[in-house]
């Protein structure tokens, strides 16, 4: 990485190594003098925090694996053996179990920071995509880890999640059998999950390396969203950000420690202290909290796609098509768009209500040809995976030239509402799918999807481009002057 001219080190041992493998030069370049925007706020700590959590999880996990037995008849007992007989086994396990939650907290904040300040935009698209890949790998790892204690929630959660794949037409059932390693969830499933749960973290380490590599090519974004121009805009990474990250990290670790030592089971579910029992289903099968928004999106589909919904979606696609073309905002006819949208909305509502069953058992709206041809389950699964797929394509959906929400007042409202929306989805996911939780999760799901599919492209075309501060230095020195709206 660091080739070309190399400064000599005074220490002869360091110099000997460095002249053969310039690792000290590289560290000095990438973490010592690395020019970093000077205006980071504390949201920029969460990358380092996530890195710390990854290492914590790997270290505690390796030791736990020394005492764990991956067999359906022994797994639960071996976890209790860790809790009761292994020296500080309870500490290791609580560090690991709560660590998963805190890893997700760090990553969710890190991800949202990228969203808010437009860190996914050119030239950082690949950096963002690698990050979403890490997130996806984390979800798979966390899910499989939760199965390992082989408690009731482990078992039934795995049952629910593996059966998602049965929604795939034709080959679904075969895929489920292949994933489970048998016709039902049993020891082969536990064994492969343990194997993969041990493997995937190291894959994550690999992708994290690429993520950081890409970061060090483009440099960090910053709250202003303008690239550093001169030396005045940046600070050397060390000691400024090494110190700031260490402080932020320790504040985070303090909260983490409070959970590990005082509320170690508050983020888990009591049912997982009941050994897995394939013949007794828990009253409510609930995933871990970090999956709840996605679970809510999955369950929001109490309806499938029927003829009316298909026509409605088709019309919506026609209405929104200009958003995805090279046309400028001023060339798009909003009136035409709104007109088509009215028709689209009518069809969508007809499609929804013709499938909505009332308490009396009758449909809310009786229409011919209202049977769904893509069933609700498949729609739910597609939407759930789609909600993450949208994050992958986000850099290409958002073509607005301004990065930071600080200078995008319209986007700012939408992206702040997204937090509220995801919080509502989280609550919906924890509740049984009945009563007003169902329409609430449907509306929230619609906002989530709408924000990315329609909102972002719409804002890309129509949100006014404002004057940005000339440089980070200028914006830090004096708050930007009254912003003039162009055009």
């Amino acid at each position, binding site marked *: 990485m660091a080739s070309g001219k190399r400064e000599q080190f005074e220490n002869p041992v360091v110099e000997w190594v460095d002249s053969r493998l310039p690792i000290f030069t590289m560290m000095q370049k990438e973490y010592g003098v690395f020019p970093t925007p000077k205006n980071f706020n504390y949201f920029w700590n969460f990358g380092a925090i996530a890195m710390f959590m990854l290492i914590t999880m790997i270290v505690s996990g390796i030791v736990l694996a020394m005492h764990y037995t991956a067999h359906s008849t022994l797994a639960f007992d071996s976890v209790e053996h860790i809790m009761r007989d292994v020296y500080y086994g309870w500490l290791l396990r609580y560090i690991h179990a709560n660590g998963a939650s805190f890893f997700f907290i760090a990553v969710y*904040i890190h991800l949202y920071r990228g969203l808010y300040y437009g860190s996914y935009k050119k030239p950082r698209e690949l950096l963002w995509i690698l990050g979403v890949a890490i997130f996806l790998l984390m979800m798979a790892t966390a899910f499989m880890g939760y199965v390992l204690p082989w408690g009731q929630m482990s078992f039934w959660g795995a049952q629910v999640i593996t059966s998602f794949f049965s929604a795939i037409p034709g080959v679904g059932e075969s895929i489920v059998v292949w994933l489970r390693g048998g016709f039902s969830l049993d020891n082969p499933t536990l064994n492969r999950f343990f194997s993969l749960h041990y493997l995937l973290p190291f894959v994550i380490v690999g992708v994290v390396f690429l993520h950081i590599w890409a970061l060090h090519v483009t440099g960090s974004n910053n709250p202003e969203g303008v690239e550093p121009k001169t030396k005045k805009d940046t600070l050397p990474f060390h000691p400024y950000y090494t110190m700031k990250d260490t402080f932020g990290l320790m504040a985070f670790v303090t909260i983490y420690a409070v959970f590990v030592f005082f509320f170690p089971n508050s983020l888990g579910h009591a049912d997982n202290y009941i050994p897995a029992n394939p013949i007794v289903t828990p009253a409510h099968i609930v995933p871990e909290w970090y999956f709840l928004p996605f679970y809510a999106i999955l369950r929001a589909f109490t309806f499938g796609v029927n003829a009316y919904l298909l026509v409605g979606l088709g019309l919506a696609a026609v209405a929104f098509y200009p958003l995805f073309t090279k046309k400028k905002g001023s060339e798009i006819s909003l009136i035409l768009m709104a007109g088509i949208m009215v028709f689209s909305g009518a069809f969508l509502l007809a499609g929804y209500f013709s499938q909505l069953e009332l308490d009396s058992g009758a449909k809310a709206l009786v229409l011919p040809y209202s049977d769904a041809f893509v069933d609700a389950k498949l729609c739910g699964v597609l939407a759930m995976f789609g909600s993450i797929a949208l994050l992958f394509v986000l850099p290409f959906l958002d073509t607005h030239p301004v990065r930071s929400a600080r200078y995008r007042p319209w986007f700012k409202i939408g992206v702040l509402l997204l937090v509220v929306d995801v919080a509502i989805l989280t609550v919906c996911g924890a509740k049984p799918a009945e009563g007003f939780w169902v329409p609430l999760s449907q509306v929230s799901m619609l906002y989530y999807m709408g924000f990315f599919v329609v909102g972002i492209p719409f804002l890309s075309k129509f949100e006014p481009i404002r004057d940005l501060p000339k440089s980070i230095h200028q914006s830090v020195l004096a708050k930007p002057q009254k912003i003039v709206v162009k055009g």
Partner: protein
Amino acid sequence: MKHFLLSLVVIVSFSSAPVLASNDGVSLPHGHWSFDGAMGTYDKAAMQRGLKVYQNVCASCHSLKRIYFRNLADLGYNEAQIKTIAGEYTVEDGPNGEGEMYDRTARPSDAFVNPYANKEAATYANSGAFPPDLSLITKARSGGANYLFGLMTGYDDAPEGTELLDNQYWNKYMAGHVIAMPPPLSDGLVSYEDGSPETIEQYAKDVSHFLTWAAEPEMEQRKRMGLKVVLYLLIFTAVLYGVKRRIWANVKK
């Protein structure tokens, strides 16, 4: 600091989610337990009484297989006392040198003895309802000790219109209110030597205390260590903040 507080709020609101999803909206009785709070410890006398209730009442149907007699040292018993307690039990051991299984007196290194030979026998003897092992019961039910106390004291006549089968009972705190376990406690059932009241309430309280220890024997050590760790981290974080301020002092704001 703002977002740390924010994340704390998020965590706390998430952590309350499973609690909200508990039993049919019936709020549990809220007992005052000596093990509550950051400095909470177990009450040895209560645990010893609770052990007695377990041995005399619960143990006739419920196993406690993850607890070894040696663990009773946590209750304040010395080695000789533990030997005496273990000595009241007989365990099957073997095979011996001749390949035979044999019965012997239990030792401190043995676990509590299961009342039934196997799960099927336990289920059969209880008309189809398997009495769960109690080693983890307070962790396996949301509400923990409060739930257990509620369940012991929550028996009542079924409200009108509720049909109960034979061997079914109505309990305020049981999910669905129908429970197969007959009311286990009655006043005066177990005699206490320390003069504590021999009432259902007291028995329920003591056995819940004992079983909370059985589920979380590490709790005292965990909280003691936790206080030191969190205190250390708080001071360390404060110092780091000072250093950070110092280093950043020359950066023009």
